[in-house]
C-alpha cells in the first residue's frame, strides 16, 4: 500500500482566490470568521506583508491595511473543493477519500505501473490539482495517517517502506498531529513535544494518562493498526455553478469559463466511468433582471454517443453556443448532466488504420450542433404492417432501445418492399390512363390499424410505369368498393 496525501494548506483562501486574476491576487485579501467579533482565518501573502496575522480581529486587520478585501469563510465551498480534488484523484486510483477539513488521501500503489512510475504519477496528480487553482502540499507514505501527518509537517521525501516510517515521523511536532489541546499541554509539560518522544513512551502508561486517542494516532501512523477510510464516491448527478468575475454579454467571452466547467465535468465522468449523453448549460442572468422575470437561458446539448473527452465536449458546446443569442448579461453559468451512459471500453488496433473508428462520433455531433437536434436521423425498423409506419427516423444515440433488426413475422422480410417510400401516397388518377402500366407482382393485401384510427386496407402491386420506372402502387379498399382509388407509394430505386 502506498498512500498519497493532498493537503490544501490555504483552502479557505483558495476557494476565493482561484477566481481572481493575478493583478487582483496581489492586493491584500483575508478570509474572516463570522460572528460579532470576526477574526482573520486566512490571509494572503500581500496581507501578511502588511502585518495581518491569523486570529487577529478584523478591526485590527483594517487598521493595518485599510484597503484589505474581506470575505467571510465559505465552508460549503471548501467542502466542494475537497470533493472536487477527490474526484480528480479518482482519475488516478479507484480509492480516494476525504480526510479531515483540508486533505484528501488516495491509495496509489496499484496505479504506479499504469502511469509509468511513481514520479510521473505524482507529478500528474499534482498538475491536475494545481490546474484547478489550488495550492497543494503532498506526502507519500505506506499508511494514510502517516501521509497525512507528513504532509501537515511540511514537504518531505516520499517514504516507501513501513520500516522507514518510524524514523521519518519521529521529528514531527505533536502539535501538528491533530491531538487535542489539553493532552498536548500535558505532554509538553513533561517535555514530550515530538512524535518520536511520544512513541518511545510505554504504551500502557501513555494510554492511562493521555487517553486512547493518541495511542491510536501513533499506531495508525506507523501502520500497526487498521485505518479504514471511507472511499469517496462522486455524486450520481453532476451540477456545478461557476460565478463569473464580472457580467458577460457576449457568448465568445463565455468560452473560457465553459471550458473550466467542462474540465470538472470530464473529471466527474472519468471518476464514475461514464460518458455524457445529454447535458445542459444554464446561463444565469444578472440578479436585477431575474427579479424582473427574465429566466436563465438554458442551452441543452445532446451527443450522438456517450463521450467524455474535454476537447470533444468543449467543441460541441462551442459550436452550439455560437447559435445562442443572449437576452441579457450573464453572471454565472451552471453545467448539469442530464443523461449519462457507461462508456464502453474500446480495443486499440494493432495497425494505424484502425484509428478512423475513434472519431466516428464527432461528425454527427458537428452536424447536430449546427443544424439542430432533429437534422440528423438514423433509421429503424418498426414491427408494423402499415408501410408508412414500418420505418421510423430517430435521433442517433437514442435508438439503442429500439431494435434495428427485422423481427420475424413482420411484413418486409419476404414481400417486396421499395427502397424509397413517398412521403405521402400520391393519387394516380390521371397517370394511369395515359399509357399501359405493367403489373409485376401482387396483390399483397395489407389491412391493419383499425385500433388507432389510421386503418388501411390496401392491395399492393409492384408495377412498371410507362417511363420504365419500377414503383410500388396500391389500390385503396378502405371503403369496401372493389374499384378503389390507385396510389403511388414508393420507388424500387
Amino acid at each position, binding site marked *: 500500500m502506498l498512500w498519497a496525501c493532498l493537503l490544501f494548506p490555504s483552502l479557505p483562501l483558495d476557494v476565493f482566490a482561484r477566481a481572481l486574476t493575478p493583478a487582483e491576487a496581489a492586493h491584500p485579501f483575508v478570509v474572516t470568521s463570522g460572528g460579532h467579533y470576526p477574526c482573520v482565518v486566512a490571509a494572503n501573502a500581500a496581507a501578511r506583508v502588511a502585518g495581518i496575522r491569523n486570529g487577529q480581529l478584523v478591526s485590527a486587520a483594517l487598521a493595518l491595511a485599510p484597503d484589505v478585501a474581506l470575505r467571510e469563510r465559505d465552508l460549503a465551498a471548501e467542502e466542494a473543493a475537497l470533493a472536487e480534488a477527490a474526484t480528480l484523484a479518482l482519475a488516478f486510483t479507484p480509492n480516494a477519500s476525504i480526510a479531515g477539513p483540508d486533505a484528501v488521501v488516495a491509495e496509489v500503489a496499484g496505479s504506479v505501473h499504469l502511469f509509468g512510475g511513481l514520479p510521473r504519477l505524482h507529478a500528474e496528480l499534482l498538475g491536475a490539482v494545481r490546474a484547478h487553482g489550488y495550492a497543494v502540499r503532498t506526502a507519500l507514505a505506506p499508511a494514510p495517517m502517516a501521509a497525512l501527518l507528513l504532509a501537515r509537517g511540511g514537504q518531505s521525501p516520499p517514504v516507501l517502506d513501513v520500516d522507514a516510517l518510524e524514523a521519518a515521523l519521529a521529528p514531527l511536532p505533536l502539535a501538528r498531529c491533530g491531538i487535542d489541546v489539553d493532552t498536548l499541554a500535558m505532554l509538553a509539560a513533561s517535555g514530550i513535544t515530538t512524535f518520536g518522544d511520544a512513541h518511545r513512551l510505554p504504551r500502557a502508561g501513555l494510554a492511562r494518562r493521555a487517553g486512547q486517542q493518541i495511542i491510536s494516532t501513533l499506531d495508525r501512523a506507523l501502520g500497526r493498526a487498521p485505518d479504514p477510510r471511507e472511499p469517496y464516491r462522486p455524486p450520481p448527478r453532476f451540477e456545478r455553478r461557476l460565478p463569473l468575475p464580472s457580467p458577460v454579454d457576449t457568448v465568445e467571452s463565455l468560452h473560457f469559463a465553459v471550458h473550466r466547467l467542462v474540465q470538472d465535468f470530464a473529471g466527474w465522468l472519468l471518476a464514475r466511468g461514464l460518458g455524457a449523453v445529454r447535458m445542459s448549460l444554464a446561463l444565469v442572468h444578472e440578479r436585477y433582471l431575474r427579479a424582473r422575470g427574465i429566466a436563465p437561458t438554458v442551452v441543452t446539448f445532446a451527443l450522438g454517443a456517450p463521450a467524455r473527452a474535454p476537447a470533444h465536449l468543449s467543441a460541441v458546446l462551442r459550436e452550439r453556443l455560437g447559435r445562442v443569442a443572449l437576452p441579457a448579461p450573464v453572471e454565472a453559468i451552471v453545467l448539469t448532466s442530464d443523461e449519462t451512459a457507461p462508456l464502453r471500453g474500446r480495443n486499440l488496433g494493432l495497425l494505424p488504420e484502425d484509428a*478512423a473508428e475513434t472519431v466516428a462520433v464527432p*461528425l454527427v455531433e458537428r452536424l447536430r450542433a449546427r443544424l439542430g437536434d432533429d437534422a440528423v*436521423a438514423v433509421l429503424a425498423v418498426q414491427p408494423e404492417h402499415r408501410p408508412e409506419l414500418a420505418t421510423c427516423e430517430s435521433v442517433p444515440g437514442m435508438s439503442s432501445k429500439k431494435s434495428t433488426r427485422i423481427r420475424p413475422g*413482420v411484413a418486409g422480410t419476404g414481400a417486396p418492399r421499395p427502397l424509397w*417510400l413517398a412521403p405521402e401516397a400520391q393519387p394516380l388518377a390521371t397517370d394511369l*390512363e395515359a399509357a399501359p402500366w405493367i403489373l409485376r407482382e401482387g396483390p399483397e393485401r395489407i389491412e391493419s390499424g383499425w385500433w388507432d384510427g389510421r386503418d388501411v386496407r390496401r392491395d399492393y402491386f409492384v408495377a412498371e410505369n410507362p417511363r420504365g420506372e419500377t414503383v410500388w402502387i396500391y389500390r385503396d379498399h378502405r371503403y369496401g368498393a372493389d374499384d378503389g382509388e390507385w396510389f403511388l407509394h414508393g420507388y424500387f430505386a
Partner: protein
Amino acid sequence: MDASVARLLAHPAIWRGSECASEPASVASGFAELDAALPGGGWPRGALTELVLEREGIGELRLTLPALSRLQAEGRSIVWVAPPYRPYAPALAAAGIDLSRLFVVRGRTIAEALWAYEQALRAPECGAAFGWMPSHEDRLLRRLQVAAREGRTWGVLWRRPGQRASAISAPLRLSLAPDRGTLAVRVLKRRGADLAQSILIDLARAPGAPLYPLPGGQPLVRRNTSTSPPHGRRHGIRLPHRKAS
C-alpha cells in the same frame, strides 16, 4: 541484402512493421461489368461521382448498395444528405445495410444541406456521402471535390430527372436509364478513354430488388400483364384482384 534473406522476407506470412496496409483507392461496386468500366476497378474513394438519373425507380440505389455495405463492413458510416424520398428501413435492412451506421441529414435550407454534405465528405469516419443537391455552382462543387479527397470519402452527387447535369470537376460521371428490365449505365466522363457503349446491368437479383422469394421458398406468382392489359371502367385498366389469404 543476402538473396536468401530476401527470399525469406518475400514469404507472404511475414509482415514487416514498415509496410502499412494502404487503403485501396476504390471500392468494388459488386457488379463485375461495371467494375471493369470504372477506373481503379470500382467506385472511387476520395472523389465525387456524379450519377445522372433519367428516371427514378430504375435500380439506381440498388446499384450502390453492395458498395455501401462493403464500406460499412470496413467500419465506416454512410451519410445521406437531403434524400428526395423517405429511405425505407425494412428494405434497406433486408438489403444488408446496417441502419445504425446510416445517417440521414436534412437541412432547412439548401445552404445548410450543402454545408452538411461538405462536412460529411470531409469526415474520415464517413465512407460514403450521398447528396441530392439542386445547386450547380461550380465553385461550391469544386470545394466538395476537395472535401471528398481530404476525407477519402466516396461522394455521390445525384442528379434527379430534369435537373441539369453540370460540367464540373467530378472525375466520374455516369448516366443511368432503364433498358428493357435492366439498368443501362452510360459513362459520360471518366479518367481514361471514352466508353461509347452503355453497360447493361441486371439488377433483378441484386439486394433491394423487388422480387424476393416468399419465406416458404416458393417464388411469388409473377404476372406480366403487358401483353393484354385488362381495361377497367374508370382508370383505363382493371387490375386483377385477389383476396389475400
